[in-house]
Each structure stands twice: as structure tokens, then as C-alpha cells.
């Protein structure tokens, strides 16, 4: 009786795992087939696995230069991840320790998470155009930083709140100045929170699509947008093996990072939700 229900549970788990991950599995499998095999065998089994599609991607140049896409994604995501930490850390300390900004600044920033960001996309486009930030990695990184701001502030405030105050008071007694206190005492103690912010922020920034689509055209196109170039807009003429491989490459970094650091971030993946 107990055995039977356990087996049923495992079956339900397997079914859920398979259905939820089906597109990922199917794309991965297709990326390992030659174009000839894709046309002949659309199933989930690879007869003659090949890495040819991946090789073809990295050979492509010009508008399809994958290295440029990857580079743009990396730089923009790095800016979009580190800048919120720099901007939020001092503010988070003041908020956690002195209750500053509890009325407006904190809720306003955290609730940005719930705004449809396309609202800001058009004025940003116009603003970027006059500032020369259109199609630059810095420009893209800045807006990714905005996207990550709510979660960075929320996690940092919570982290600092959970730190014992005595250490800070002792340092103050010893005559540590405020910058020393923040950088030498508080910042190192925040490490777990910082790691979480970094990982979640990087995943969000890398996966972002809308701003990449609107604010870049050639030089700073991130990989999520670049991957969509491989799907000819006309419909026909898509090389499906290559297309599958580019999707895998574009989707892999956050997935690998997320699964690798799962123990670290597991619960906090829903942070913006629990308190928002």
C-alpha cells in the first residue's frame, strides 16, 4: 500500500519533469542532429550525434557573429548585476539600521518589480538616442541594472537586518569611520546575500529580451536577441540544427549557473514575490 503510493508519486514526478522540460530536451537533442537527419527523423532519438551545428555557429560572421552576442550579454549582464549592488548597498544599510526610506524609497524601489517595464522603454529609447547610448553595452547594462534594483535592495536590506548589531557598535567604539565600518565590517558579513543577489541578478540580466530588442541593433546585441536572428523572419529557410544549437548556447549560462548554485539560491528565486 505504502509502496504503491510511493511508486505513483515517483511516476508523477517523472511525468512532471519530462513535460516541464520537454522543450529543453527536444532542443538539446535536435542541436545534435545533422540537417539531413532532422528532416528524416524529427523524433527524440539521435542516430548520428554531431557537433557540426555548434561548429557552424561559431564560424558565422557579420550579423550572426555569436562571439559578439555573447560578449555583449556578458558585459551588459555584468554591469546590470554589479551596479545595483553598488547603488543599493549603502542605501540598504541606512534602511536596515536607521529605518530611513521606509515610507517611500524602499517600497517604491521594491515595487518596481511589478511594473511593466515596457512603460519606460520608449522614453529610454528617446533619451538614449540623444545621449548616444543606443546600441551600446553600457546603455543596455544600465537598464538591466534598473531591472535588478528591486531584488538587490530587498535582499541586501534583509541580509543587513539579520546581522548582529554588536559588531558594528564595537567597531564604532574603536573609532571606525562610517566608510570603514561599511566596507570593512558590514560588506564582508553580507557575503551570502551578495552571492544571492549576484546570481539571481545575472540570471535575470542574461535572460532579458525586450530591452535588448529595443535598445540595440548591431554592436551591442545580446545573445537572446541574436539567437532570434537565426530564425529567418520570412518563415522558410531556417536551418533547424543550427537554430537549435544557438538556442542551447543562449539558454545555457543561466541554467548552468542556476543548477550549480541551486543550494545557494533555491529558496530566494521567489524573493521578489514573498515580500513585494
Amino acid at each position, binding site marked *: 500500500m505504502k509502496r504503491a503510493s510511493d511508486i505513483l508519486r515517483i511516476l*508523477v514526478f517523472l511525468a512532471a519533469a519530462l513535460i516541464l522540460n520537454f522543450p529543453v530536451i527536444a532542443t538539446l537533442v535536435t542541436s545534435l542532429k545533422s540537417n539531413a537527419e532532422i528532416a528524416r527523423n524529427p523524433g527524440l532519438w539521435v542516430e548520428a550525434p554531431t557537433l557540426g551545428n555548434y561548429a557552424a555557429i561559431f564560424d558565422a560572421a557579420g550579423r550572426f557573429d555569436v562571439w559578439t552576442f555573447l560578449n555583449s550579454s556578458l558585459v551588459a549582464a555584468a554591469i546590470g548585476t554589479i551596479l545595483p549592488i553598488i547603488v543599493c548597498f549603502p542605501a540598504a544599510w541606512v534602511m536596515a539600521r536607521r529605518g530611513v526610506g521606509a515610507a517611500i524609497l524602499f517600497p517604491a524601489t521594491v515595487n518596481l518589480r511589478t511594473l*511593466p517595464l*515596457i512603460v*519606460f522603454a520608449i522614453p*529610454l529609447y528617446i533619451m538614449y538616442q540623444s545621449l548616444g547610448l543606443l546600441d551600446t553595452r553600457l546603455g543596455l547594462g544600465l537598464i538591466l541594472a534598473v531591472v535588478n534594483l528591486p531584488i538587490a535592495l530587498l535582499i541586501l536590506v534583509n541580509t543587513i537586518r539579520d546581522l548582529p548589531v554588536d559588531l558594528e557598535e564595537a567597531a564604532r567604539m574603536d573609532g571606525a569611520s562610517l566608510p570603514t565600518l561599511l566596507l570593512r565590517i558590514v560588506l564582508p558579513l553580507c557575503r551570502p546575500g551578495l552571492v544571492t543577489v549576484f546570481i539571481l541578478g545575472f540570471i535575470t540580466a542574461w535572460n532579458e529580451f525586450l530591452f535588448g530588442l529595443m535598445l540595440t541593433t548591431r554592436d551591442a546585441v545580446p545573445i537572446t536577441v541574436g539567437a532570434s536572428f537565426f530564425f529567418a523572419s520570412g518563415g522558410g529557410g531556417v536551418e533547424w540544427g543550427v537554430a537549435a544549437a544557438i538556442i542551447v548556447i543562449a539558454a545555457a549560462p*543561466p541554467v548552468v549557473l542556476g*543548477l550549480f548554485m541551486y543550494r545557494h539560491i*533555491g529558496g530566494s528565486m521567489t524573493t521578489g514575490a514573498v515580500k513585494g
Partner: protein
Amino acid sequence: MTRPARLENAILTAPLVVFLLLLLGFPTILDLVYAVSEVRFETLRSPSFAGLSNFTAVLGDPEFWRATWFSLRFAIVTALAECALGLFLAVYLAPLLRRAPWLLAILIMPMIVAPAMMGLMYRLVLHEFIGPLPNLLYAWFGTSPGFLTAQNVFTTIVVIETLQWTPFALLLFHMAYQSIPEDIREAAAVDGTRSWRLLTRIELPLMLPTIGVALFVRFIDGFRVFDNIWTLTGTGPGGSTTSLAIYIYVAFFRAGEIGEAVAASIMLFGAAFVLLFAAARWSTRGVR
């Protein structure tokens, strides 16, 4: 508070405030200006005042209402489906996940995949000739529906969105379920409470706030959906998958109707604000 402390506070919050003002405050003002202006790409620098004509144009555009209705329907259906499925999985698989927590990572994976890439993956998966899913359906049933036809496309993207974000609800409910104190369950077991009654009378009521949060977050995210729909179907056959975000994007980039696009986005902003305000009121009342 002492003077120097106040100065310190101002200095420490300054980076955040300045950053917000530059990247969101200024664009918001620009939004308001362009919303009441007659402006095209050629006249970006010299908009001329046009009163509320952009708003009336948007409100009189049936496509705008269609997009609003689409987003609303999409958000409600997906939020409900994701939370129902997530709740079922979290509760039903709880014994399994307690023994082997890492199994959860496998179920969570879809939500780490970029939604835009998920949309592209389904271009492949659902393709009528080379797609693995139609292939399987042909093999099993001898037939396969046209997933992206005008008739079926709404269902298809609802299912796609649901499959990607059920993990979010699952994760949230999993944590809420695990944090129910074990002694409550033990006490109920001593009283001879059946497991179904334990679930409906004790566990679900305890998880109710989390369920509310999950529904709210998923509704919001569903309402502003763009990435996965855009990469899979674009505006869809006959404009049938035009969400509000897609409507605004197309008005701006394809049609160059900047004033109208901005007016539409301000209305979206307003709607989101009202909703958020209502949710905040509702949740604080719930706490009291």
C-alpha cells in the same frame, strides 16, 4: 536624529535616488510630455502639443481593447493554472521532495530558461514537419492539431506560459508547505484527522497568504507578457496574440506612432499602479 546622521543618511541613499531619478524619473517625465504631443521619429526633438488626442486615439482603437482583453485573459488563465498545478505538485510530491530535495532543482529548471528562448524552442518543438511534438502525436494518434492556427494559438501560448512558470508557484508553495510546523500535523494525527481533512482544514488555510501572493505575482507577470509570445508567434495570425506590451512595441517601432504608444504605456502604468495599490490595501487588511 542628529544633524550629522541626517547628512550621512542623505549621502548613503543618494546613489540609489540619483540612479532612480536618472533612469526612471526622467523617462517618466518624457513619457508625460510625449503622451500629449504630436510626434514622429523625424520630429523627436520638437514635439507639438496635441492635448489628449493620443489618448482618445488609443481609446478609440479596437486593437488596443483587443490587446487589453488578451492580456487580461492570458494573465488570469495562466495565473490560475500555474497556481493550481504548482499547489498540486508541491503537496503531492512533498514526501518525495523531503527525502530528496535536489529533485526540486529538476522541476525548477524551466524558470531559469530565458522566456524568449522558450518561445524559440517551441518554434522548433511545434513545427509541423520537423517538430518532435507533432511527430510524437502522429506516431501515437495518427493526427496532430495545428498548434499555431488562429483557433488554437491562444491555448498553445497559455499552455507554454503555464509550463514555464508552474515551477515558480511550485517553489513558493513547497517552501510554504515545508514551513508548516510539524507539531501541527502531529497534533492533527493524534486527533485522528484524516489526511484530506488535514489538508483542507489546516494546511491550505495556513498557505492561503502564499497562494494569494503567487496568484498576484503570476497575474502581473502574465499581464505584461512579451518575450515568449514575441519569439513564438509575434503578433500572431490576424493579430490574435497581441498582448498589451506587444501592442505598445508595435505601435512604436513598426508604426512609428510614438505619441499613441506612449499614451498606451501610461495607461498600462496607471492600471498597474491601481492594481498594486489595491493589492497593498488588501494584504494589509488581511494581516490585521
